[in-house]
């Protein structure tokens, strides 16, 4: 229950927005201390690594733990009088009689698994304000409702959002192997040519490194397990030696936006606006979304001030967004990701053209492929993937990894992962898709176990949930709805 506990990101940080917000962040003690010292890009095959020219320009950027930076920002905010209340979950939007959003409601605490009130029951509270800004991160539970109810995708750039699942570990490695500021990205193995994604390896300070695999959720093979692909990655000869002799400090996972420019919804609704990744401002080819998320927050704040002080409409947030460097940057980056719907090599080839020749000036805007949940093909078209057993040295099983995420939820509470139709898992997910949720969830929340008639039944271990939202995104029939669990629960990231 502290700021930053649910924050997880790569992260190679571009200080552009922070420079505008807190120009003297360095002297204010921001935990942004490791400048990028090298930038490598590898195309991996099963046993080899082919160096490619790095498509990134990270001069002036820093390797950070976003969780730490957010904690620092929270301190700075509190210093100027902002009140922050971590550990309370906003579970509903509050409307007035004119369908204007006037605030949010927190969920009841102390509700038992069967829905009855426990000894410690406390009803939720309503938090009302003249302006409500939603910043729930990627696939926010309230933001998605607002986007749907107010048809904000149609009013915005028009395309659906697309996503990826990032799985990450922070390691403490041997001193001699550690090079602060060293940045590495890979593509290719272990993912196949039809699956978009890649890995990152960033050296922070104190012998710590951030290591992760990002898998786009428009993958086709229902037998794919992003967690196990990540374990495979760590076995590669260009990665394994670095990890040997080291210890894993933390583990976590979170989905991120990949829709970019084409998927930006109209972020304003009566009574407020959506900011940051809940709207979706990640620059996918740069693999950075922190600076644009921050800037969107700053622009919304300035618009909010105008609403409160001068009675201007909140729509000025949208106007200023379109005039800002966020818009320009995302426009330039718009065609990289959609090009990969044609495959890895065409995508890489197009990326090279975009990067060195077109630079976003092509007079067309590629559309995204199918929505992620529709991209999953039926299991009969694929073979189950045999993943190697974890060796306990660089690769691990899910329970071991989950322990490292410091995830905790009050045990006796209703399951926060809701099935719109409880019959769908056994009727559709299992027979048609071999139960993909039992594979893509990085916390193994979903398990098919034999019931008393020996028939497989979906068991939801909600306590393990990392709040990544992959299930809300990837379920083929969109039958799983992620809702907020009792406040205070979830992962406990400190260095992620």
């Amino acid at each position, binding site marked *: *229950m*502290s700021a930053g*506990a649910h924050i997880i990101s790569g992260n190679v940080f571009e200080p552009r927005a922070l420079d505008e917000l807190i120009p003297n962040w360095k002297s204010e003690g921001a935990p942004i201390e490791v400048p990028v010292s090298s930038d490598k890009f590898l195309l991996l095959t099963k046993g080899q690594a082919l160096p490619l020219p790095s498509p990134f320009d990270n001069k002036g950027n820093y390797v950070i733990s976003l969780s*730490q930076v957010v904690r620092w920002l929270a301190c700075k905010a509190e210093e100027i009088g902002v*009140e922050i*209340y971590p550990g*309370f979950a906003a579970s509903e939007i509050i409307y007035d009689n004119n369908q204007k959003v006037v605030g949010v409601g*927190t969920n009841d*605490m*102390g509700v038992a698994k069967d829905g009855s009130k*426990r*000894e*410690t029951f*406390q009803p939720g*509270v309503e*938090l009302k304000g003249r302006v409500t800004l939603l910043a729930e991160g990627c696939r926010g539970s309230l933001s998605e409702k607002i986007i749907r109810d107010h048809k904000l995708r149609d009013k915005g750039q028009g395309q659906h959002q697309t996503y990826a699942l990032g799985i990450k570990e922070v390691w403490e490695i041997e001193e001699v192997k550690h090079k602060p500021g060293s940045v590495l990205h890979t593509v290719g193995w272990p993912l196949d040519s039809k699956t978009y994604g890649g890995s990152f390896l960033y050296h922070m300070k104190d012998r710590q490194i951030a290591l992760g695999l990002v898998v786009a959720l428009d993958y086709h093979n229902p037998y794919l397990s992003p967690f196990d692909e990540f374990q495979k990655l760590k076995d590669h000869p260009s990665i394994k030696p670095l990890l040997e002799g080291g*210890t894993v*400090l933390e583990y976590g996972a979170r989905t991120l936006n990949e829709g970019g420019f084409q998927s930006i919804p109209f972020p304003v609704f009566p009574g407020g606006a959506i900011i940051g990744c809940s709207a979706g401002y990640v620059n996918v080819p740069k693999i950075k979304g922190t600076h644009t998320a921050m800037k969107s927050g700053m622009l919304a704040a300035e618009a909010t001030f105008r609403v409160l002080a001068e009675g201007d409409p909140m729509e000025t947030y949208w106007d200023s967004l379109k005039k800002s460097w966020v818009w320009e940057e995302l426009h330039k980056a718009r065609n990289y990701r959609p090009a990969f719907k044609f495959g890895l090599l065409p995508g890489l080839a197009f990326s090279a053209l975009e990067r060195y020749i077109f630079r976003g000036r092509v007079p067309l805007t590629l559309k995204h492929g199918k929505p992620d949940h529709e991209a999953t093909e039926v299991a009969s078209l694929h073979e189950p993937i045999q993943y190697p057993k974890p060796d306990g040295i660089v690769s691990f099983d899910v329970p071991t990894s989950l*322990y*490292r995420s*410091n*995830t*905790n939820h009050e045990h006796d509470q209703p399951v926060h992962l809701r099935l719109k139709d409880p019959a769908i898992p056994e009727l559709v997910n299992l027979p048609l898709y071999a139960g993909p949720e039992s594979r893509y969830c990085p916390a193994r929340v979903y398990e098919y176990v034999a019931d008393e008639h020996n028939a497989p039944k979906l068991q939801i271990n909600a306590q393990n949930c990392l709040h990544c939202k992959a299930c809300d995104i990837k379920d083929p029939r969109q039958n799983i709805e992620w809702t907020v669990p009792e406040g205070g629960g979830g992962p*406990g990231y*400190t*260095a992620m």
Partner: protein
Amino acid sequence: MKIMVAVKRVVDYAVKIRVKADKSGVETSNVKMSMNPFCEIAVEEALRIRESGAASEVVAVSVGPAQCADTLRTALAMGADRAIHVDSGALAPLLPLSVAKILKALAETERPGLMILGKQAIDDDCNQTGQMVAGLLKWPQGTFASKVLLDKEKQVATVEREVDGGLETLSLDLPAVITTDLRLNQPRYATLPNIMKAKSKVIKKVSLEELNVEIKSDLEVVQVTEPPKRKAGVILSSVDELIDKLKNEARVL
């Protein structure tokens, strides 16, 4: 009657801890801290006693560096009336005897009728402070309390204790010291409105000099290491092999 509750700020129970590289202790920087779970139970019990009418005021106390204020605000948000922070500043985490001496000094000023503490802190598992305070104050003690009943008229506390053989019931004349065990109660959630109100409540700061307590450390932590990694089990084929291994390998026979 006033109840004094001592609370401690510890590494959150859900956090996976690690030992610092220099083996001087457990890593606590950038780690989530919370009120010790047994201290939460102590605060809850104090609040229930006050709500039953047997006490008029609950005072929360904490000894430690500046961040103790967070823990005291949680106690205030749960419903404590006042909070006192004894700033031990840069002094290394204080050991139970030092804390007990400080609590004794505070008790002599505040004059509570009852002092409630958690039975132990989950970082050091000492299980000493409550007992030491009672000894220094020459007050009766009821430790590992699983039930507390206060008789306001007779100024007596009946404490049911969890002991190895079962339950023991003691009758303590007030003022007394009680330490809480897990089954005593389920602490209430601090509600959002109460947390908001607690932000503006004043926490009284007291220095060690004002209390006239001299902190002298008689113990020095020499080294902290992780427990040895659990080795894989071995399946044996006969009783003779078992005896041989117990005798010659494990050397327990």
